[in-house]
């Protein structure tokens, strides 16, 4: 995000919504004109509150995000549709009159807080295979629970320039190195793996690629180009690590022979072209095809018995809301310390991070970080390690997470911060 441009827009937006500003939203007589959606411990459903703001934007309204004010609260117009929506979803709201709003704005102006206008509901795409279970991806679950609309896309749409239609793209546990999460040998014969392999091979063939790793790399490049042209990318779990590995593997065979017919290049680590990667550099790749680990980018190595690290908790960083509004938006939360959770890629080792990366959360004292952000061209990317914030030990075949049992999940809030963050962007994508 270009900070100066963002700040200029934030100021203009605040004026537009302010009771002291010009114009503004329709005024509803007989009751207070504003609704404050508190996001501190007064909120009865933090996750659905994001959906409330999103749907208000979808209806063509405008909102403000009060960064660092009561856990990152939202200011919405108290129109009948929003009031009804909040009541249906069980979201706590507080009616505000103009006088109280002026007082809150004064408080925001005087502290490490800011008011960011939200102008347009981003068009959301989730990258997932056509037959993916709806409950096996934390972002899909969060979007469904909050009531935020999204569309699923897959390799044919990405290769076919289909990303142009979306403002925000999410990747979850896809393996962009084309090695089926490196489960190929350990789960040989398991029906779900057979299905995954067949589907990927058929897709690669239909798109004219000789093997899956080649096709997945082309998908990774298309995604990087989408970011370059102004897209917002959010990735979790193993999509983070493998996307960068695929991007950096320009002319380097990093796939095992079961995936592309030829063994991995023994000197692959030395030949990687990290300048193509978004977040990582100088990583050492795992050469064994039987070890379900890709590289030393992941700090926790959950699938390697002898290297696996125990889970701790991670701490969100504090940023200056007025100077670093983007980073501040991404860490809005009612908790600062959050229990960690495993994924095929759980965390990111500090020594593999590029110097340009902004760390949003880390485990103090540990050699890894959890949540990172950066820019590429006109767009931005955010990587969040781990699979499911409310299922720390997630195993294949686990029961789906029911978010109605975790309406205050601080980990899921971080996901939803990312969904709403592009709403603050004014310009259309330059794709």
């Amino acid at each position, binding site marked *: 995000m270009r900070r100066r441009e963002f700040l200029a827009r934030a100021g203009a937006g605040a004026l537009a919504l302010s009771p002291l500003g010009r114009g503004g939203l329709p005024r509803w007589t007989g009751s207070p004109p504003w609704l404050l959606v508190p996001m501190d411990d007064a909120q009865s459903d933090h996750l659905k509150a994001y959906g409330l703001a999103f749907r208000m934007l979808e209806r063509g309204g405008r909102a403000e995000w009060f960064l660092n004010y009561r856990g990152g609260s939202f200011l919405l117009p108290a129109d009948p549709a929003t009031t009804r929506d909040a009541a249906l979803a069980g979201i706590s709201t507080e009616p505000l009159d103009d006088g109280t709003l002026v007082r809150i704005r004064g408080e925001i102006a005087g502290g490490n807080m800011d008011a960011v206008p939200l102008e347009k509901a981003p068009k959301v795409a989730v990258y997932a295979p056509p037959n993916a279970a709806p409950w096996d991806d934390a972002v899909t679950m969060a979007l469904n629970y909050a009531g935020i609309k999204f569309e699923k896309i897959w390799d044919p749409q990405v290769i076919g320039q289909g990303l142009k239609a979306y403002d925000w793209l999410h990747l979850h546990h896809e393996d962009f190195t084309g090695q089926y999460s490196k489960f190929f040998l350990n*789960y040989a*014969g398991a029906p779900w793996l057979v299905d995954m392999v067949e589907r990927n091979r058929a897709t690669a063939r239909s798109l004219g690629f000789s093997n899956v790793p080649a096709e997945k790399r082309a998908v990774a490049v298309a995604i990087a180009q989408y970011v370059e042209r102004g897209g917002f990318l959010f990735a979790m779990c193993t999509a983070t690590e493998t996307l960068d590995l695929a991007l950096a593997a320009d002319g380097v065979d990093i796939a095992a022979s079961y995936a592309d017919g030829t063994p991995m290049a023994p000197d692959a680590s030395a030949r990687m072209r990290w300048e193509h990667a978004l977040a990582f550099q100088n990583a050492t790749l795992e050469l064994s095809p039987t070890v379900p680990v890709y590289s030393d980018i992941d700090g926790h190595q959950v699938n390697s*018995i002898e290297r696996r690290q125990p889970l701790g908790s991670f701490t969100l960083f504090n940023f200056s809301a007025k100077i670093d509004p983007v980073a501040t938006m991404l860490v809005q939360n009612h908790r600062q310390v959050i229990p960690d959770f495993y994924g095929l890629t759980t965390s990111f080792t500090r020594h593999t991070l590029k110097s340009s990366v902004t760390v949003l959360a880390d485990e103090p004292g540990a050699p890894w970080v959890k949540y990172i952000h950066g820019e590429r061209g006109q767009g931005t990317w955010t990587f969040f390690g781990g699979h499911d914030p409310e299922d720390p030990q997630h195993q294949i075949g686990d029961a789906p997470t*029911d978010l109605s049992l975790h309406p205050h999940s601080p980990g899921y809030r971080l996901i939803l911060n990312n969904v709403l963050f592009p709403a603050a962007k004014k310009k259309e994508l330059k794709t």
Partner: protein
Amino acid sequence: MTRARLTALTLALTLLASPAMAQQSGIPRGFELERRGDYAGAATVYRTVLASRPADLAALLGLERVLLPLNQTAAILPEVRAALAADPKNPGIYGVALRAWASADQPDSIRATAERWAAAAPGDETPYREWGAAALSRRDRPGALEAFRLGRQRLGRPDALAAEMAQLAGADGDFGTASREWLATIRRLPGYHEVAVNALAPTPERLRDEVLGIIADDESFSARRLEAELLAEWGRPGDGLGRLEHALPNDKPQALGALRSFVEQLGSPRRPEALRARARALELIADRSDDAAAARARLEAAQAYSAAGDRDAASRLLAQMGDSPASPGDLPPGAASTLITVLAGEGKLDEAARRLDELSPALDAGDRADLRRALVRGYVKAGDLDRAQAVLGSDSTVDGLALHGWLRLYRGDVAGALAAFKLAGPFAGDRAEATRRTALLALLQPIEADTLPGLGRAMLALEQGDTSRATTALERVGGNLPPAKGGAEANLLAGRLAASAGDTTAAERLLRVAAVPEAPATAPAAELALGELLLARQRTADGIAQLEHLILTYPRSVLVPQARRLLDQARGAVPRT
């Protein structure tokens, strides 16, 4: 506490603890340190023992245990090598060695160690079993399969390592192979029967016929047992029992073991088919048991038949009981109580009353009162309220008061029923009965009239199991009462009854009549029931609209969280559970 006092106390504790610690050495000291969580200290102690006695298995296992929490499992390798050199035939050491090589991610060494162990113990399955387990701990399924296959080949027995092969196949979703291997396992080791049933029970529906076909091809009795219990598990208990009964051996203990296992597999069924299967299995047990055990099994069978609605079979068994040389007085008290309960439930009320009189001197007061109340319920079911009242007498226990309430209600005495239910309080009967009474109070309390014979007739019809007559009668009562004075509650109950009987059209109509704003205490429950009904009928949009109406109209109702959850499920926002 001041620093000086703390230091003094610490010193005192150290002085006190030191002699005890000093007396301990070797393995006991290692155990003690391990118990305290000092794994590094325990590792040092175990290593000291192993330095002088390299093949000490207790020390080696202790070291293996404490290295795990220290995240140093592979660091045991030097001690393992020394132990093997000192005692190359000790199977315990080989087991530790295999696990150590697995931790070190050295498949070649795993293989070499297993081969060495196999050579030292020819004819033993254990080396191959441990080899496979070590491979599995590295998630190396092909390696595990190779170990098991090699073991089977070398041992020359087609059923060697069958349980391991079965588990591996099951985990891979290959239930056909798994069932063949489990058959081989239980033929040789019948004790694995329950494990086999539990392992094959999760077979996906589309693969069940294949599995049953494989089991059917095996003519052994162990195969019939497996087949019977799997069929029971998959909702066909009658078929299962048929196969088992046909194959029961003459050997009584073997047959009884199989039948009891089948009954246990059924658990406490509610569906009629499962209840009948349970009853028949109990009959078969009775046929093979001595007098007292046979009588008890027949009574349980009669109860199960009765619960399944098979009155003829229940009566047949009770008649057998009557012919039995054992008089009711000879039966254990529990069995005698069962007999009277079954007789009352079967409508043989005079017979039950006679038996109760005979047994009374041998029963304690609590059991006697329980049985009398069972008899009261029997007379209610038969519609003989006078006899029911006479048997209940002046029972003033909380359960008795609750029954008085019901009897008054059936006679249409609303005020009397309310007074009796209030006296009985919330503790009479089991939880379901208490909940039922609480729901009834919601219906009775708004009614202003002291007597309402129509309501009594409706509730009696419901008790007698005539849902259709009860629904019609309740609708009539509801139509004659103002909504806020019991009319809405009567329609709500009628709507729920119609829904439970599958008459969804009538249920929707009745619930809509109940969901009126004039009855704000009833309307939320009626709207929720209506929302559930519409969603169950796949009218998702209508169901969602109904639930939204409930949440927005009655935001303070305690039913709102339940309505929101249903709404989330209907919209796909949360998984259905």
